[in-house]
């Protein structure tokens, strides 16, 4: 249940970001195409960098145990604050709604 909740929250937040920023992106793409190209270049740079991540991780010589720990920590760092944030929002709404 918690996993589904987390996944749902993430999809919701990412979808929210997409829906909020999508019009801005369209505006930039239609009105400032040079800036859109620059933003796309930045994204392409990230994609290019991602291609080397596997090699870089391998070159560090870290064990799978260390990598697992890092991944688990990142997972924790990216998920738990979301849960806490949601709980805080719910509590805040509850306090607002209940006199």
């Amino acid at each position: 249940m918690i996993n589904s909740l987390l996944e749902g929250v993430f999809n919701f937040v990412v979808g929210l970001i997409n829906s909020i920023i999508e019009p801005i992106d369209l505006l930039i793409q239609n009105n400032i195409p040079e800036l859109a190209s620059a933003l796309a270049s930045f994204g392409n740079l990230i994609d290019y960098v991602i291609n080397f991540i596997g090699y870089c991780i391998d070159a560090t010589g870290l064990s799978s145990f260390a990598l697992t720990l890092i991944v688990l920590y990142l997972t924790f760092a990216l998920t738990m604050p979301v849960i806490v944030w949601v709980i805080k929002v719910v509590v805040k709404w509850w306090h607002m709604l209940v006199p």
Partner: protein
Amino acid sequence: MNKKRILFFTFLIFGFIFFPKNVFAASRIRIYGSNNALCATQYNVTTKSYVTYNGSGTCATISRVSISEDNAVLQSGIHYRLSSTLFLDIKQPNDYCTSDNLYTRGDFYIGNYTANQWNNSSNVTWNKVDDISQGRNGSCRYTWGLVQDWNNTVSSTGYTWDFYFQQNHFPTLYGIEIRRLDLENLTSGGGNISDVTNAVNNQTNAIINNNNSNTQNIINNNNEHFNNLLDPNTTSSGQLANHYFGNVQLATHGLTQIITAPIRLFQSFVGATCTTLTFPLPFVEQNVTLPCMSAIYQQHFSTFLYIYRLITDGVIAYWVCVKIWQKCKSFLDPTDDKVEVFDL
């Protein structure tokens, strides 16, 4: 202590002192010629005494020496040991004092000697000549240490111990002497030495096998841990992380792409596998291929890699614990509502 008890313990102590732990039996020796019995040979032997046959002149060649007992008390379920030292003054056909072709085998029978009924028999190979020295009348004195162990299964009253010489190599007898013809009851003497030896050996082997098994388990565990350390595959963690982030549809353009870049980076991080890098060198127009480094580390610096990974594992584990603790602590802060992704 009353008189009855004193008498009882006195008899008990005397009983222990005089109770025969080893069974000795009067025996006889028969010496067989190549065709007939030799020189009317039958010699009574008293236990623990010497029996010496001084051959008066040259006797005929002998084919067998038989040491027999017809008045023994061999109980069932007892482990016995019959031992003796046999001296023979003989001359071989080649007149050399060597043990070559001296005899081939021996037989050992247990049963009723008088009735010639044998309960058990076994072939014995007595092929060791302990000593060869100068014997009587220019003969050679051969010395054998004879030992026979057996578990007696049927109550018997006799045994015979045969000692055959090889045909065509029958020696000429000049004298015979037998010493220390002992029939020992090893069971009442505290158990069979060979049984104890076997038990100790079995126990030792069990301990060794157990240790080997434990050692092998330790080696397997170490190898498993070592292989885990050397394994760059992060599939399991990738699956775990992808459970949260794998189904998230991320935009690949514009500001959205930049904002969600950390998540994409993370996605690529958990599913990353090493592929060789190939890129062209400028000016020389040649491609350079960089192999995956972990294979090189493992091939040339496996020990250092192991130590390095142990250290980094420890440091990273400590760092992760501290960071998780800090993050949990920050959750308690009512003013802290940071959410990592949205801080970008």
